Structure formats: C-alpha cells, structure tokens
C-alpha cells in the first residue's frame, strides 16, 4: 500500500469517527435538549425532568465524553497508520 493510499484511508477513518460523534453531539443537545424536550420531560429521574436535564446538564457531560472518545480513537488511529508523534 502506497503512502498516498494509506493516508487516504486514514482520512476516511477519521471522517467516519467525526461523523458518528457529531451525530451523537447533535442528538444529545439539539435532539434531547430542544426538539424532543417536551416528550422527554414526561419521564423523570429524581427531581429532574429528563428533557430539562439534557438541556442544562446531560448534554454538557456528553460533550466532554465525546471529545475524550475522539482523543482515544485518534491516538489509536495515529499509531495504526504510523503518524503518532513522539
């Protein structure tokens, strides 16, 4: 496999990760926190209505987790494709 092919595959794998994680990003904030907030507010967890919780708490936790998942995935990808910097 030539260097160029390899890099093309690296980039495609990166785009796939970005696409999936951005999907989750959209779902937890715009989906759960805004578009379906009323439906989710019918469900309760302790004192929280779930939709409200996603809008003011849950989405932020999810954002942090998403970034750390991306860091982990990309470090693995960098090593696999030999572009990990030391």
């Amino acid at each position, binding site marked *: 496999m030539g260097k160029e092919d390899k890099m093309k595959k690296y980039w495609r794998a990166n785009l796939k990760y970005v696409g999936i994680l951005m999907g989750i990003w959209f779902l937890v904030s715009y989906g759960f926190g805004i578009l379906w907030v009323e439906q989710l507010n019918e469900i309760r967890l302790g004192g929280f209505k779930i939709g409200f919780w996603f809008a003011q*708490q849950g989405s932020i936790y999810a954002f942090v987790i998403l970034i750390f998942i991306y860091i982990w995935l990309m470090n693995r990808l960098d090593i696999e494709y030999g572009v990990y*910097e030391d």
Partner: protein
Amino acid sequence: MDIQLWTYILVGLSFVIYIGIAIWSRAASTGDFYIAGGRVHPIANGMATAADWMSAASFISMAGLIAFMGYDGAVYLMGWTGGYVLLALLLAPYLRKFGKFTVPDFIGDRYYSDVARTVAVICAIIVSCTYVAGQMRGVGVVFARFLEVSVDAGVYIGMGIVFFYAVLGGMKGITYTQVAQYCILIFAYMVPALFISFQLTGSFIPQIGFGSTLADGSGTYLLEKLNQLNTELGFAEYTAGTKSMIDVFAITLALMIGTAGLPHVIVRFFTVPKVRDARKSVGYALLFIAILYTTAPAIASFARVNMIETVSDREYSEVPAWFTNWEKTGLITYNEKNLDGKIQYVADEDANELIIDHDIMVLANPEIANLPNWVIGLVVAGGLAAALSTAAGLLLVISTSISRDLIKKQINPDISEKAELAWARVAAGGAVLVAGYFGINPPGFVAATVALAFGLAAASFFPAIILGIFDKRMNREGAISGMVAGIMLMLFYMIKYKLGGFGGGGPEGWWFGISPEGFGAVAAAVNMIVAIIISRLTSEPPEEIGLMIENIRYPGGTKG
C-alpha cells in the same frame, strides 16, 4: 475581619501572583509572544483556555440570567460548551498542524490571498474589541462594589495589571497567569456553591442537589418547588421557558459555531507541542469549563428559590441586610405600589414592585446564604480573575493581528524579529488603552455587541476554516465572497432588529422567527452556500494549496 479587609487581602494576593508569574515568564522571541513558544503542556493549556473563555459574563452574569430564564438558559449552557466538540473534531488538530501563529495566517495562506487575510484581520479586531470592552467594564464594576473606588478607577487598576503581564510576557505570560486565574476562579465559584447546595438540599454536590428534594423535610423536589413558586407568581414554569423552539435551536447553534470561530479561543491551540496535544487540550479545556457550566444552572435554581422565599410577600421593614446593601448600588430596586408595605415580586409588570439585576445573583449569593466574610472576598477575586484572563487573551489577538498579520505579512515583510516583537508589545499596549477607553466610556450597545461578536465569528471564520480543511476544491473567490456575504447579512440583521436601523422591526418581523442572537447560524449557512457555489463556478485552487491541505490532515512533523 470584615468583608472589605478580606477582599483587599485576597484580591491583593491574587494580583501579586499574576505579577510574579509575568516576571518569571517574560517573552524572549516572537514565538514566545504569539504562541508561548509552542511548548505549553495540554493540561496547562486546557486551564488557560478555560480561563480565557470564561469571562466576567460566565462568572458573574450567567447563573443570574439562567435564574430568570429557566429552561431557556440552556441556550448559553449548551451553546457555550458544545462549540468545543466542533473545535476538537473539526478545527484544533488541523490548525495546530498548519503550525502558524494566527487565524488570519491560516485564512491568508489557505486562500493564497492578502484580501482574505485582511478581511480576517478586520473581523478578528472587531470581534475582539467588542468583547474586551465588556471585560474592562466588568473589572470596574466589581472594584466599585467591593473596594469602594469609582468604576473608572477600577478600570485603571485593571488596565495596569493586564498591561504589565500582556506587554511583558505576551502569550507566554498570559498562558501561565491564566492557569493561576483558572484555579482562583473555579475555587471561588465552587465554594459558595457547595455550601448553598448543602444548606438547601443536604447534598454538597450542586449537580446532585439540583435534582434532589429540599432539606426542609417537605419531601418536595427543588425543581418542583421552583415550578410551583414561578406559577404562583405568574411566571412561566421554570423547566419550560418562553422562547420558541426554533429560536432556542438557532441561538444554541449560533453560540456553538461562534465559540468555535472566536480567534482568542482558536489561537490557544497553536500553543501546544503536537497535534494530539491540541485534541487533548480541547478535551481538558471543556472538562474544566464543564465544572463551572454544570454548577451554574444549579446555583441559578438555588438562588431563585432563596430569593423568592426571602423577599416575596415579606414586610419591607424586615428584609435582611444584604437586600438594603444591594439596594444602595441600584442593582436591586424596590418600588412600593399597592402601599401594603410588603414586597410583591410577580410577573405582571404593573403589580411587580421588585427589580433585581441578574448580575448580583452570584455576587450576593454568599451574603444571601450567610456564608463567612472570606467567601465574599474570594468571590470578588474570582470575578476579577475571570474578567482579567479573558481581557488578556483578547488583547493578545488584537496585538498579534497588528504586528504579524498587518505589519510583518503585508506592510513590511523584511522586518527583523526584534522589531516585530517590539511592534507586538506596542500594539498590546495600545490595545490596553483602547480597551480601557471603552471600559470607561462604554458604548450604549454593549449587550448588542456581544451577540454581534458571536454572530460575526460564526458568520465569517467558522465556515472559512471548516471549508478550508474539509473541502479541497474551495478557492479564494469562494471563501472571500462567502465571508463577505455572511458578514454583511449578519450586520444588516443586527442593525435592523437590534439597533433599529434600516426601518427597524420587532420580533414579529424576524426571519423564520429567529432573533438577532440566533441569526449567526443563518449567516454561517449563507456563507457556506455562497462559498460552495462561487468556488464551483471559478477556477480550482493552485496545486500547492492541495498539497498543503493534504499535509494538515495528517499529524507528524510539527516539531520545531
């Protein structure tokens, strides 16, 4: 010891720390001055970014705003954190690999055009200037309330401190001061939050107390109680809000992409050694920001319950001391209307007798909850740390834009490094003076300008950078016409619906029901569409640009 003495001690101590750090971390080269030599540890950079990002508005105003907005406050909570996901996944690693000093650097090089570079410089300066004026004002207001000096004197003191470490240390000095400022501001924010959460709900962790039952033994959940209080007084339910769904959606999106396009945030990711450090430091930055941002809505709900229970329908003659103290500053106004001697706080404006400025929720919280005097001093030091750290980051963007993007790149490319560094210092000093001027003579449209700063960042930088990385076919013509279209549309909408120009108009005239605050999302979309169409109608970018894009897409070789 009284509040004032504690405040002097804690604020004085924090200033000594900042000045000490500034002397220790003087900048020796332009690399030091612009990007701290590119050697900042990702965790330190995360803290610095968090302090850079969290301004006086986040620290002082946000919880109060949410307390009055209820669910709608989510636009700030999600909007000002979700942009970091965009930064980590779409921007920071590639800009780090690009390996220059500023955002206009990237725009100018990627679009092989000094016109594009100049458009970017102008945007960077407008965005940063509007933002920094508010910070200096914040410094002045905090000083005036707690240290009994005038607002103007407070601004001068703030200018003096920022001048010292920004001019001396550049990015290097700012970075390490911001690390200290983050520690101070987060400690100052959390201490009262933990105590108040415990008092009200029996849980020390505000994020948990937020969803718990009240500690008064009634078994009612805090949020239920709040909904009940709000409804009784005629307000919308706390967990429901009043904005339309499309507007909440648009504002959140505009703030997210605005965040990801703000030059003083982006430039922080140029300061780390490697591409993977750039990703990592975005993660740490958001983690450090999330500590404050998940606490703020909890504080908002605590403060609102406390406030309503303490003052609503109480005899005015029996209110606690903090109430009258803040009344003196004009931030609480009480206006007896039905002459029953009691305080009516209700949604109906004709019957409402109490107006509370949202800024005091955080500042008055320790007093409302009867916390010891040193906590109040700490909150003051924290508020100043938040305002100063953001101001310094913005000043650096302004000075770099002038010394590098204008002087070095366009006016005099042969300038020596020593002279460039001297220009950077002069520009930083000049920027401090300009910021101080606006802090003392604030333009009447400060609230509009912050929305404008985000709208412009969203409408100009974000699409140009994203397309520059992900769309190889994007060329000079497309990017410039996209940016110009986005900025013009944003300015038009803001002037028409916020400042009353072009015939003005109110909410009934808003396009698609979207407020000026949320319009950045539309302007960004217009920028992208225009850019893509124009680029497909004009010639391809030169071959070396294709190679450059290939190169920034993969890590490796960022040393040096």
